[in-house]
């Protein structure tokens, strides 16, 4: 039996600045033969040795297995230590954990992605997976918002999506800065720019709790069924494997039974 608490060693193959407080880290297992399969929406427990572990979504797509990536915002002790590491430095990885997005259910459907701020990384994994198998899905719409233009992550990829003919992509910021010619306003304000067919669309919503709440209400009002609105929950986590109770809501564990839930499920969770 494997020890669920034993991390694998990986080294940072590439570190990219996304925003002043957010970086993307590319991880390479030291054991090159390591089998690592995951679904979009799953997460890792990443160790910075001496500081402990924290959960981070896998931001890269399983359809591009050559680069395992995670995007991390500088918020506290462990993320501070992580941001101080550079290429070649070692970290520990456990996982992948969590249920991930149900790719099968999405096949053939129209897909609407709504992301706010640091909520894009988990969706990015799914988006690339979808785009790499583009023909299996209907319309793809991506709506993304951040506080300011500098807070947008994956700036090059955003341009990429904007250029693609098979993706409808809109981006907005709460507050513009000089040089910003795009939309200004909160994410839900983008809804008026697009048309969707609620009965055949799955909506994926990730971002700060307040944004998620507003977007979900909006989508419900537009006729989305509770089961077709899919989100990820953030919770304080320690073990990632349904043992420590930190992430428990009701009798479910966000780390094991989530972090992906549809709105119908979220509503039923007893705090």
């Amino acid at each position: 039996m494997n020890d669920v608490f034993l991390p694998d060693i990986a080294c940072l193959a590439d570190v990219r600045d996304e925003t002043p407080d957010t970086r993307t880290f590319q991880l390479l297992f030291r054991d090159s033969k390591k089998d690592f399969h995951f679904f979009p929406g799953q997460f890792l427990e990443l160790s910075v040795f001496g500081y402990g572990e924290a959960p981070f979504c896998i931001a890269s797509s399983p359809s591009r297995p050559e680069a395992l990536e995670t995007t991390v915002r500088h918020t506290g002790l462990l993320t501070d230590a992580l941001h101080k590491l550079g290429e070649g430095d070692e970290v520990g990885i456990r996982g992948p954990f969590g249920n991930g997005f149900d790719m099968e259910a999405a096949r053939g459907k129209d897909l609407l992605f709504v992301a706010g701020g640091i909520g894009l990384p988990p969706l990015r994994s799914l988006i690339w997976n979808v785009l790499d198998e583009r023909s299996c899905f209907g319309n793809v719409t991506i709506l993304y918002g951040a506080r300011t233009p500098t807070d947008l992550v994956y700036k090059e990829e955003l341009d990429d999506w904007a250029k693609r003919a098979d993706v409808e992509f809109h981006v907005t910021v709460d507050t513009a800065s000089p040089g910003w010619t795009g939309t200004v306003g909160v994410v839900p304000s983008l809804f008026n720019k697009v048309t969707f067919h609620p009965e055949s669309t799955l909506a994926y919503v990730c971002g700060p709790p307040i944004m998620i709440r507003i977007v979900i209400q909006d989508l419900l009002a537009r006729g989305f069924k509770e089961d077709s609105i899919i989100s990820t929950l953030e919770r304080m986590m320690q073990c990632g494997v349904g043992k420590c109770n930190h992430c428990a809501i009701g009798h479910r564990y966000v780390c094991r039974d989530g972090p992906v839930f549809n709105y119908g499920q979220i509503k039923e969770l007893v705090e």
Partner: protein
Amino acid sequence: MALAIAKENVARWLEKLLQAGEVVAPVRSSCGDVLFSTITSAEQVVWDFPNSLHPPKELLLPQTDPIVRITRRGQHHEVEPIIDRTRRFLFNVRSCDAKGIAFLTRMQEMEPADASYLRRSNNLTVISLACTTPCQLGFCICTDSGPFLRDSYDAQLTDLGESYLVEVASPKGEAAVAEAQSLFRDATEGEVTQRQKLEDAARRHFGEETCHFASAMRRISTCRVPDALWEKMSDWCLECGGCSVVCPTCYCFSVKDLGCDGTWIRCRVRDSCQYSAFTLEASGHNPRAQRKDRMKRRFFHKVSAQYYKRDGAVGCVGCGRCIKVCLGTTHMPAVVAAIRKGKWHE
């Protein structure tokens, strides 16, 4: 099949067990408390005590539990699991605690199973002593965890006066007996009947009062306990977390690295859902910011139909420890009663 061992032979059995592994048994400290500790000789075992306040779960889920050793060598790090394969006998443990251990083990076996816990529990032989005279505060009868056990033990002893009846329920139990086979004989029919009588008497000890978990469970599971009641009760909790420390079925923990300068021990450390930062997220958002939210959580975990269905039991083995340890007054029986009556302290 039941066996019997004469009381005067128990010490010799223990000597054999001591040769086979570590024996953990109730021991009286210099200050008069009974604590489960590793013994070195049979005389240390205390027989005459209600139950220890400190729970024997410490053996399986220590408050500080080293799980991974991390070493830095230059640029590189090595990680290795810290493996505890010691064969242990938990001797003279009470029925509720044996049930508690079984509960924890079921929990840890759930996928993905926790190997470090299971290594310990697989090497642990639980030798319980049935409670012929139930302790004062316990209510194991309501939670189906005593005073006598039908499962969850490897060997169960019953005090028959001159001898102990020994029921063996597992290969681990058989192995423990086999360490000193010659000291055991088959129990007589009379002894088996006597055990039954003792059990009936012990059950009667609890009187007519039946337990009220059912009605509390209905209300907790369907969120029908008024928020105002939680709020009121929560002022009588002093947030010590003692309930989680001593409860045989509580298992909350955190994972932290201990050490410095390139050698660290990653530890599982005891935690409690009653502490306010237990659910605090890095963003500052705290889904259970108020004490009443946390209290609600504790009782949902222990007494909801949702968990009952999953665990096959309520998350309480009726040991009564929280009654003694609660710095406030919000222990299990008090809260269950308040929920049933719909009022607190009136």
